[in-house]
């Protein structure tokens, strides 16, 4: 269906996953991602797929681990508190080199928090989606169309590097509606997975999917190999969008819904003659350090805008080796910054006219 439709972000994520060849969804309801599971429940039976509402988030995430181990494109989705419950299984997936897609439509936290949009799970997604030494791929769409495009990318790169991938969205993106074109997935070719536990038919050695290692030497060797792979990913898979950065003195760094608001603020600053620009990280891990380091060669200051108390701001400082001042502005608890608030910050940062 290459026609254009009006879709909620949550629905678009679901449809894009189906078009990307995913036929196995395991979930547990939570606001504000419910439409994603609801859409899957309506659509999966029609395409010969499985929609399964598990007894808990933990169960759902472990079903994904099992299903993906058999070589299927499997996914789960949740919102912040539910993702915390899934992190054990995500760590097991990373430790077993099993690719799968996890979607987090973030809401306010900590604890049960609230049901309004948030970006306070940045640290969880990029630093510790569970225990142990590992990373997952993290994508941060800013439009409903980009949600569609990144779902396919997340599945593909997850398969390529044999690791879990996350779409880190927020309640605003999940709930808002925009026109989208969804690629027709009838020609999607899924990669061979010779490692999968899908029956050896007496034609090959049996495969084992496992994250338990009996000697520390073996585990260290494996983790080191995994981290060599992470270095390749950091080199090849960074994604960011730059807006009016070429001559910018003040560069706002924002992702997801915050980037949408920041975009408006940068436009207002330009109308006032202030040289402002925007860098929008699209991959949060790997973080687009190259784009930021390059911008630091000419920019005078950076402003990280987030719907949190300040999490990505640390990665901005690391990316530019603290070579320029990096300020932070955020709202939290389910509040969204306004373009005017961000403009005020840009002006206070000394944006010259």
């Amino acid at each position, binding site marked *: *269906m290459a*026609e*254009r*439709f*009006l*879709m*909620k972000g949550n*629905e678009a994520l679901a*449809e894009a996953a189906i078009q990307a060849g995913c036929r196995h969804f395991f979930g547990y309801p939570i*606001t*504000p991602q419910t*439409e994603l599971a609801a*859409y899957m429940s*309506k*659509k999966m039976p029609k395409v010969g797929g499985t929609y399964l509402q598990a007894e808990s988030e933990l169960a759902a995430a472990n079903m994904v681990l099992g299903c993906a181990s058999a070589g299927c494109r499997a996914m789960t989705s949740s919102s912040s508190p539910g993702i915390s419950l899934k992190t054990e299984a995500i760590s097991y997936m990373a430790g077993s080199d099993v690719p799968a897609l996890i979607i987090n439509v973030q809401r*306010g936290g900590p604890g049960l*928090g*609230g*049901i*309004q949009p948030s970006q306070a799970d940045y640290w969880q997604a990029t630093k510790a989606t569970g225990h142990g030494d590992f990373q997952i791929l993290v994508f941060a769409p800013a439009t409903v169309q980009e949600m569609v495009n990144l779902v396919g990318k997340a599945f593909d790169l997850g398969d390529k590097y044999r690791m879990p991938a996350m779409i880190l969205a927020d*309640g*605003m993106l999940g*709930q*808002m*509606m*925009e*026109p989208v074109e*969804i690629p027709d997935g009838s020609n999607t070719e899924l990669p061979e997975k010779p490692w999968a536990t899908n029956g050896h038919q007496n034609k090959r050695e049996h495969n084992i999917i496992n994250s338990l290692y009996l000697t520390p030497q073996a585990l260290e060797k494996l983790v080191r190999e995994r981290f060599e792979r992470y270095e390749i990913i950091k080199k090849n898979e960074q994604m960011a969008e730059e807006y009016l950065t070429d001559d910018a003195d003040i560069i706002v760094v924002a992702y997801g*819904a915050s980037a*949408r*608001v920041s*975009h*408006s603020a940068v436009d207002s600053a330009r109308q006032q003659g202030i040289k402002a620009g925007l860098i929008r990280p699209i991959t949060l891990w790997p973080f687009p350090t190259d784009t930021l380091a390059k911008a630091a060669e000419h920019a005078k200051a950076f402003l990280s805008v987030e719907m949190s108390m300040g999490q990505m701001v640390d990665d901005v400082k690391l990316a530019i080796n603290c070579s320029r001042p990096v300020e932070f502005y955020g709202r939290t608890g*389910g509040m*969204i910054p*306004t*373009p005017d608030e961000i403009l005020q910050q840009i002006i206070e940062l000394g944006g010259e006219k």
Partner: protein
Amino acid sequence: MFEFKHLTIILGHYGCGKTNLSLNIALDLASRGKRVTIADLDVVNPYFRTGDYREMLEQSGIRVVAPVFAATNLDNPSLPAAMGDIFEPHGDEYAVVDVGGDDAGAFALGQYSAKINSYEDKDIFYVVNKFRSLTSTPEDCAEILREIESAARIKATAVANNSHLQELTTPQDVRSSVEYAKKTADILKLPLAFTALESKIIGGARDISPAYEIRRIVKPPF
């Protein structure tokens, strides 16, 4: 100018534009000098709801009745006692009721079905949008109304065509949707009340009749 009845109930699939249409009808009636109450009867949707526009509505003299915990973090669908009052005639007062999406959202309406069914001067619009992926064929669209009617225990009285693609909508898009809306209405054996058209494209779509002019009120904060 569309002549609205004293009670207008807005039903439809998730995201077809029920809240935007409800707000437009309430503001339209208020601008014609009518006394208007708008009821946010959506107990399933956390964002983009009628209750979010309380300030703007009250400034236009419109009374807002919303779930007790609307616009808070509490996922608790408790409805105020005043909600029941909406479904009884009150002289020259008008009421517009914005119901939640699909059968899940319409379920809450069921408790008022006896009152609604005995209310004479009413329209129950089934709002349709051709550009929503799960209701893009008249057959799928008609099926969703049957589920809604079964959950809400009331019958729609007309189809309202609200097909649009936000700012990308062209007059041709809307023109193509009229046939879809008529087909849906035929399957449901209902009349097509009107096609809603945004002010900025109405000039290029004068041939569409009956049309109802609306503006886009519900949108994200950027």
